[in-house]
């Protein structure tokens, strides 16, 4: 025995409306949809001159300020055609017809006259000229079932194409929330409505019967007829995806990155990674944070990383150098202008702290604050963004452990810092303790930097951070 379920039409939504009209009976009996609209005598592909309608206040001339369409574009009724201005009033002119734009009668900034043609539109005669009033919505339900035909007294705005889509999917336009201008129902609204449909709103037709699968213990032989019934007929819901690809010119920030990274490609990179135990530094920073706060400066970990890097660069100056175009000369830069990668709304920028070699940790922190606030406001000057000699990227504030940073020419090295994680480690006595571990990933120019140099620099940098007191010895 199979269970037969038919949703009766009368249980399907009953719209309350102030204006209820009943079609004459003959309409109900028809199995195909009917649409009524006023037709006018328009022949195939006729060009209609769409005149500029009255603006009000006795205005006769306006200036065309923006065209939303160009010749050859197809338009639907109510699409915006152009924006005109008259005496402090900006007016959006919308199309009265569906069709193709054949001619624009005015250029930008020209004066257009009320009552004179604005654009020529070629109308597809088979559609007829859809008037603005009296468009009656199509009866969505099919035949046998008795249904209420309800027609709203005021307009359900939708273009013929949208109405067709609704009709094909058995959707009542009155049930769709229109999100277009004046509540006009757009294609997207129909698609959204479809996506939200549940089984309860299916039109009753044989195909839509949902039959639950027979339990396995059923011993009735699987006759062909039963087989047919066994297979649950899935609700055929149209899979719709109304997303569209979007192409736009790249932003200035991306252009800059293209330039920089293409140049970086020429550099043979090698990577060197390590982990640093920041347990002591974390504690130190906690103690120093309030001191810096009193002086009006926010103290993060970066000033320590930057200063330690500078101390390391004093011992390994080749990491603060630059190779010329022809790879003939290496310039050892005297200043340690350490760049700090910053993520802003628009994209990546790398301002640098100048002359870290003569700055205290506090001074570096203060300078970082300044650069950060300018950076987020988008007001960094060229001076702050040029002249870098070495870069650190603290991607760990967002996340990650090991990375492969790309060197920013004309520099020869870069370090990327992962997030600080609390991990178990063994101490000297073989005991497990909680350590604050951060991973560092260095990249260097293998044309002039060798692995040993990078490793030694990294070890020195690491030792300063793992034992901050040792920094005191070498601080200048």
């Amino acid at each position, binding site marked *: 025995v199979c269970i037969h379920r038919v949703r009766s039409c009368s249980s399907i939504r009953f719209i309350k409306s102030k204006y209820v009209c009943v079609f004459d009976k003959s309409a109900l009996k028809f199995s195909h949809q009917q649409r009524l609209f006023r037709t006018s005598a328009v022949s195939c592909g006729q060009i209609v001159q769409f005149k500029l309608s009255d603006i*009000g206040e006795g205005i006769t001339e306006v200036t065309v300020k923006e065209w939303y369409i160009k010749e050859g574009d197809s338009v639907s009724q109510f699409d915006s055609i152009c924006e005109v201005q008259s005496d402090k*009033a900006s007016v959006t002119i919308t199309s009265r017809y569906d069709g193709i734009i054949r001619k624009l009668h005015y250029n930008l900034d020209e004066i257009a006259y009320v009552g004179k043609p604005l654009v020529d539109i070629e109308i597809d005669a088979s559609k007829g000229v859809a008037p603005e009033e009296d468009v009656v919505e199509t009866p969505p339900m099919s035949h046998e079932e008795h249904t209420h035909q309800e027609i709203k007294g005021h307009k359900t705005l939708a273009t013929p194409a949208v109405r067709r889509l609704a009709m094909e999917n058995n959707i009542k336009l009155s049930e769709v929330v229109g999100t277009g201008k*004046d509540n006009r129902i757009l294609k997207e609204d129909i698609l959204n409505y479809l996506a939200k449909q549940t089984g309860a709103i299916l039109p009753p037709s044989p195909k839509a019967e949902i039959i639950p699968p027979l339990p396995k213990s059923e011993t009735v032989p699987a006759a062909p007829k039963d087989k047919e019934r066994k297979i649950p007929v899935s609700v055929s819901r149209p899979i719709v995806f109304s997303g569209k690809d979007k192409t736009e010119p790249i932003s*200035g920030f991306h252009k800059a990155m293209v330039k920089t990274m293409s140049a970086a490609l020429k550099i043979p990179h090698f990577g060197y990674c390590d982990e640093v135990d920041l347990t002591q530094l974390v504690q130190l920073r906690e103690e120093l944070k309030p001191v810096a706060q009193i002086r009006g400066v926010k103290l993060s970990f970066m000033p320590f990383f930057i200063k330690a890097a500078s101390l390391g660069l004093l011992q390994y100056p080749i990491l603060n150098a630059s190779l010329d175009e022809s790879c003939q000369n290496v310039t050892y830069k005297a200043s340690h202008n350490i760049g700090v990668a910053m993520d802003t709304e628009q994209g990546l920028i790398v301002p640098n702290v100048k002359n870290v070699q003569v700055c205290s940790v506090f001074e570096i922190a203060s300078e970082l604050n300044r650069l950060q606030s300018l950076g987020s406001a988008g007001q960094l000057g060229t001076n702050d963004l040029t002249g870098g000699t070495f870069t650190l990227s603290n991607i760990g504030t967002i996340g990650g452990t090991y990375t492969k940073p790309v060197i920013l020419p004309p520099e020869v090295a870069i370090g990327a810092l992962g997030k600080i994680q609390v991990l178990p480690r063994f101490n000297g006595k073989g005991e497990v303790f909680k350590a604050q571990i951060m991973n560092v990933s260095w990249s260097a120019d293998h044309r002039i930097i060798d692995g040993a140099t990078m490793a030694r620099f990294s070890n020195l940098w690491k030792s300063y951070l793992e034992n901050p007191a040792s920094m005191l010895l070498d601080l200048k």
Partner: protein
Amino acid sequence: MVLQSSLKNCRQLSCILRTPKAGFRSTSGGLIIQSVSNDVYQNLAVEDWIHDHMNLENRQVLFLWRNSPAVVIGRHQNPWQECNFGLLRQKNIKLARRRSGGGTVYHDLGNINLTFFTTRKKYERMENLKLVVKALKALRPELDVCVTDRYDILLDRQYKISGTAAKLGRTTAYHHCTLLCNADKLVLSSVLKSPYKGLKSNATPSVPASVKNLFEEDPSLTCEVLLDAIAEEYATQHHIDHRITLINPADETVLPGIGNKTKELQTWEWVYGKTPKFSVSTCFNMAYKDSVLDVKVDMDVKHGRIEACNVHLPEHWLPPALCSELVKSLTGSKFCPKETTTLATALLRVCPQDDELHSRWNLLCENMIMLM
């Protein structure tokens, strides 16, 4: 802005501002609403929302709003011609482009905005302004206020206290105007003065006018007093309930889709990208070490992006290859200091490393950025 709830009566907005799908309710005639937000973008978005979604067949709406400091340019204006960007940034004043036409205005909490919504057929600016004048005169009969044929309201026949703009759509229209109660005139005049030279465009220019605050005429005229008076007059003239309904422009349940409208008004494409085509043709002097150099810059800007660019420098002051790289990079980029800075600094990475070159380059770029 602190609203005294004893003065206003909050009402269930959802039954009134629902989309016409449900048909209109019994509040025929009109509605007075006031925004609880001082964010210019949110308030402009409310105007858009009402214009797009509300059925105004048998009613009119008056929308009252105030903004924290902002410069609002008209739909077809050029912000570079209208205001001082440096000062805007410095004072943290927002820049917005509205959808109605007209000129540039400065808003702060001492300025009231009134928007009159009607169907397109009932669009009538003079009537609205006369209503405002009537309300003012009812408050203070001795006030010398009148409406000009340019749709301004003048105080003492000299000082502009209100400017007007309007937007007409297919079926609805709105007319909005400002009213100066107690705005900061110093900031107003300094921020609305453009320092940019050599701009040529067909954008709608603003007509500067001397302004005065109503507060200066009579200190008892505060924004609240004026808002109430105008609402009262509106209610009387349209025979509607004089209670003001508060509206929260961040409430998606009452105003579905308002979030998107607010976002759109803040995009670069809208605020700057909608600037009508213009060209910049200017010379400036750069002092470098012991000499002064003349630099000539020509740019064509369309949709806020540099379509064409030319920089004339004394020969060989900078490597020509670098200059042409700069011009090439700038072409197609936004006419924007941030982008130009980023591009210029990126270019410096791929040229010979020379301090002299760097400082010259930075000088040129800083000056170019000042044009934006």
